[in-house]
């Protein structure tokens, strides 16, 4: 019975220990349940997102870039269909093998392969490598045929930029290219970027990126663990970028560009009331289409090494002394401030008896001298002596107030072009501040003929001319159509204001700020005097651009020549008195011309600059004359179109 007692005891121990174990089991199961609760109920959202991230892969589809059109809705930048080859890096196991296969299929050379490897190094492992953004149809179909052997390869039907007017517009429209790391920092690009997408590099393409770039589409696919697409879940269609409407008339632009062929220089044309830039040509030029798929080294060197510097947009980034084209403004300033009676006579005695100030001699351009001159004649024949004296009497500070008011010294198109220059309108304060020197009277004297410190861009000269020609009203120059302004009203308002000879409440002789489409002059008669003198310069005998005139009232224009020295003229030069052809190109004067047309009821202002072209009357004025005819011939068309008659498009 001892045995039995022991057995009972043993049974009890087993049962007791079983219950202890059971308690432990319950505890542990409770632990599992709470973990399940944690994962599936508390953190459910987190894991749902992770699960979707797992199974859903997004593919971005590139948007079409917005088109750019001219004033008449003619397409200046369009999109062509291109075939591209992309590599999805994280789908590739052996990059070398894939590249080798691709090389054999589409025939890449050694340097292209090197470039691929370089590109790859810069990318993150999940990025897309664009092998080629412009395959031929043959290459593209080959890739598609062997696609099953090319892991990670993705043939893409995309679009690329095409500029039908190629060279004629590159300085305005700009061009596109691959996005640089710096480009990708810009929010508008960063938000909408898709591998292989081209972004604006210069000009409108660059500054209007936000408008043009569009929004990419998203294709969402369900994928399995190895990244294979199982099904398309949804597709948000890409949105093409907005259209950008320029004020340029491509026909005029083309013609301007043609006139500049073989020369270095610029032609700008502007509506004097609306401020719309009708043409803005710069020469020499280059083909933006070459940049779209990456320019090759040879073409690039050719552009870069061209001594006439095609890359510089001379209309806004070229700085020139305005020379005699500045004279109408000097005369206007002198009249406004009442410095001198326009009937005051000054004698120009030629090189033998130059203008003298504190022992320094200042020569007129005309060797024999102009003889006795009054102000109108001095403008018409561009007598330097008269302007030396007038500038001396006026003083540089007063001149600078007027010069700035009429558009010099600040950039014209705002932040549209990152290379646009401000130019320089000097005054005594400026010199003291930036050169830490005091102003010399001699500097005022040469400033009077647009030489010295003063520097302007061709577009500034065009604006200046426009704002004198419209009767002295401030306009808002622009190259992108501004739908918010009704130009018909603007023109009518300015014309009404002109005929009313309004009384002024403000002192226009002070350095005041003038609003757009408001008058800038002190006395209406002064403006009229200058305009009349410019008429004489072009349309009367002895006028400097008399040869380029039109007698037909429809085309009749008024202008002012300018010849801007690029170096100091020595006594020896004066003695030699060489023809332009005989001087070394780099040392030749720049030829300038500003004009407005038609003389009766003007609508357009124009500026022409031919670098090292010699004299303004011979090199610049004839071009202006030709272009003016073209502009006026097209005026009716433009007027009708802009007033809503779009059927002409």
């Amino acid at each position, binding site marked *: 019975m001892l045995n039995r007692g*022991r057995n009972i005891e043993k049974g009890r121990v087993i049962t007791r220990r079983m219950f202890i174990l059971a308690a432990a089991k319950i505890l542990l199961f409770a632990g599992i349940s709470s973990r399940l609760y944690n994962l*599936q109920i508390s953190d459910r959202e987190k894991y749902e997102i992770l*699960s979707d991230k797992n199974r859903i892969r997004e593919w971005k589809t590139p948007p079409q870039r917005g088109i750019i059109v001219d004033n008449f809705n003619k397409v200046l930048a369009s999109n062509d269909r291109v075939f591209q080859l992309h590599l999805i890096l994280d789908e590739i196991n052996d990059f070398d093998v894939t590249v080798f296969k691709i090389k054999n299929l589409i025939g890449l050379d050694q340097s292209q392969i090197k470039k691929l490897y370089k590109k790859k190094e810069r990318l993150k492992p999940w990025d897309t490598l664009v092998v080629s953004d412009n395959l031929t149809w043959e290459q593209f179909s080959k890739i598609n045929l062997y696609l099953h052997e090319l892991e990670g390869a993705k043939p893409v039907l995309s679009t690329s930029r095409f500029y039908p007017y190629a060279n004629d517009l590159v300085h305005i429209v700009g061009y596109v290219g691959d996005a640089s790391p710096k480009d990708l920092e810009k929010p508008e690009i960063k938000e909408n970027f898709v591998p292989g997408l081209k972004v604006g590099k210069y000009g409108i393409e660059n500054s209007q990126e936000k408008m043009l770039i569009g929004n990419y589409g998203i294709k969402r696919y369900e994928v399995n663990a190895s990244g294979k697409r199982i099904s398309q879940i949804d597709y948000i269609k890409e949105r093409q970028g907005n259209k950008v409407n320029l004020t340029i008339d491509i026909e005029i632009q083309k013609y301007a560009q043609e006139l500049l062929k073989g020369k270095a220089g610029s032609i700008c044309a502007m509506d004097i009331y609306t401020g719309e830039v009708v043409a803005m040509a710069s020469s020499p030029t280059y083909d933006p289409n070459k940049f779209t798929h990456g320019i090759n080294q040879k073409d690039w060197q050719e552009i870069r090494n061209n001594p006439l510097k095609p890359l510089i947009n001379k209309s806004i980034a070229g700085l020139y002394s305005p020379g005699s084209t500045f004279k109408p403004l000097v005369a206007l300033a002198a009249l406004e401030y009442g410095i001198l009676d326009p009937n005051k006579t000054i004698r120009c005695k030629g090189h033998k008896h130059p203008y003298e100030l504190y022992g320094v001699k200042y020569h007129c351009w005309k060797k024999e001298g102009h003889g006795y001159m009054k102000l109108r004649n001095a403008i018409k024949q561009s007598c330097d002596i008269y302007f030396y004296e007038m500038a001396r009497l006026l003083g540089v500070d007063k001149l600078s107030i007027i010069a700035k008011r009429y558009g010099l010294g600040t950039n014209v198109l705002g932040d549209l072009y990152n290379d646009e220059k401000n130019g320089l309108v000097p005054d005594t304060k400026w010199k003291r501040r930036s050169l830490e020197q005091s102003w010399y009277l001699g500097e005022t004297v040469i400033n009077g003929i647009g030489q010295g410190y003063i520097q302007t861009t061709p577009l500034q000269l065009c604006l200046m001319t426009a704002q004198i020609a419209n009767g002295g009203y401030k306009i808002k120059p622009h190259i992108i159509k501004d739908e918010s302004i009704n130009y018909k009203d603007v023109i009518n308002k300015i014309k009404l204001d002109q005929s009313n000879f309004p009384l002024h409440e403000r002192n226009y002789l002070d350095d005041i700020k003038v609003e757009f489409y408001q008058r800038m002059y002190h006395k209406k008669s002064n403006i009229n005097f200058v305009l009349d003198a410019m008429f004489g310069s072009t349309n009367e005998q002895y006028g400097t651009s008399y040869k380029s005139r039109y007698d037909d009232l429809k085309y009749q224009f008024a202008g002012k020549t300018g010849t801007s020295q690029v170096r100091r003229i020595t006594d020896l030069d004066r003695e030699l008195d060489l023809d332009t052809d005989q001087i070394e190109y780099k040392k030749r004067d720049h030829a300038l011309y500003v004009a407005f047309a038609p003389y009766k009821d003007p609508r357009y202002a124009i500026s022409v600059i031919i670098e090292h072209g010699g004299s303004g009357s011979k090199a610049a004025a004839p071009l202006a004359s030709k272009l003016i005819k073209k502009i006026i011939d097209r005026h009716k068309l433009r007027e009708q179109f802009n007033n809503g008659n779009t059927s002409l498009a």
Partner: protein
Amino acid sequence: MLRERIQASNYSFLDKLRSIDYLLILLIIAIGLISVFAIYSTEGGKFSFYTKNHIIRLSVFFSLFFVLSFVRVSTWYKNAYLFYFVGLVLLITVLFFGISASGAKRWINLYFLNLQPSELMKIAVIICFARYYHRIQSSDIQSYKFLIQPIILLIIPCYLVIQQPDLGTSILIAGSGIAIIWLAGLNIKYFVYSGLLILVSLPFAISILKPYQKSRILTFFNPDRDPLGAGYQIIQSKIAIGSGGFYGKGFLKGTQSYLEFLPEKHTDFIFTLFSEEFGFLGSIILLLLYILLIYRIINVGLVSRSFFAKLYCFGFATAIFLYVFVNIAMVLGLLPIVGAPLPIMSYGGSSLLSIMLGLSIVMSCKIYNQEQISAY
């Protein structure tokens, strides 16, 4: 002895049928059915290889279970050591003639089935220990003489299984063995001491682990250490379970497994798939089924007269608990991934066979619960 025989032979077949634990059978069938659906889902809703195989195995092994349930407990008792010995021989056979898959040598090719002896060993150890402690007097249990034998009996199969290598099964074998030693009433201090010993020797133990085992343990503590490598399974499993939510994504709609983000989804990670598709609710129900199963097994032990039956049932219940707990804790990221199937649910012949075998012994304990077994 005579009385025992009389008692046993007194059972008519009807009596035997009457004393079957039908709830237990119901639970087995329920879990079996769930497993069929789960494995059907791993194949993306196609009735193909795994599903077919699993159904065949379930039916064959269930029949086997039913037939073997009528084997008398005493027969199991008598052949307990033989069972263990056969298991050991098979394990040694694996060592020499085993077939390998994915770096582990665990199987013997029996032509109709690739047998995994380590799975059988899980049961063999329990039945062997139950017999061992059945005959030992409670006064002798604490003595070293009687302690050293089971320890050796435990270490040999564990060592062989670790060599395969199969850490998970080895731990489960050891766990079941230790559970019975505990149930038999070994003084608690031994457990405390050996626990401390294990803790102290842990750094050493880790150093002799295979690199893949080490990385599994390291990634367990920090799955993000290697999200695409060793930590991948844990992370993906957690994502699958977590994204299931309360009601789950629905039958055949588990994206994680359907899109093949889940590794080994029809074996060790079957719970993950189930939990993703049936959510918290389904998981808790499955868990409750297992708890009920364990409860029924314990119940059989409670109504059994012999120590052998009691020890076996309690031990087997603990083993089932361990399998379930280790597996689920593993896929929930609470334990390192060690490779332990979920009883009945996981696809795999040997595991299913051993569980069914184990259950048939439980059932036999139930049917013959009044049978006394003398300690000869």
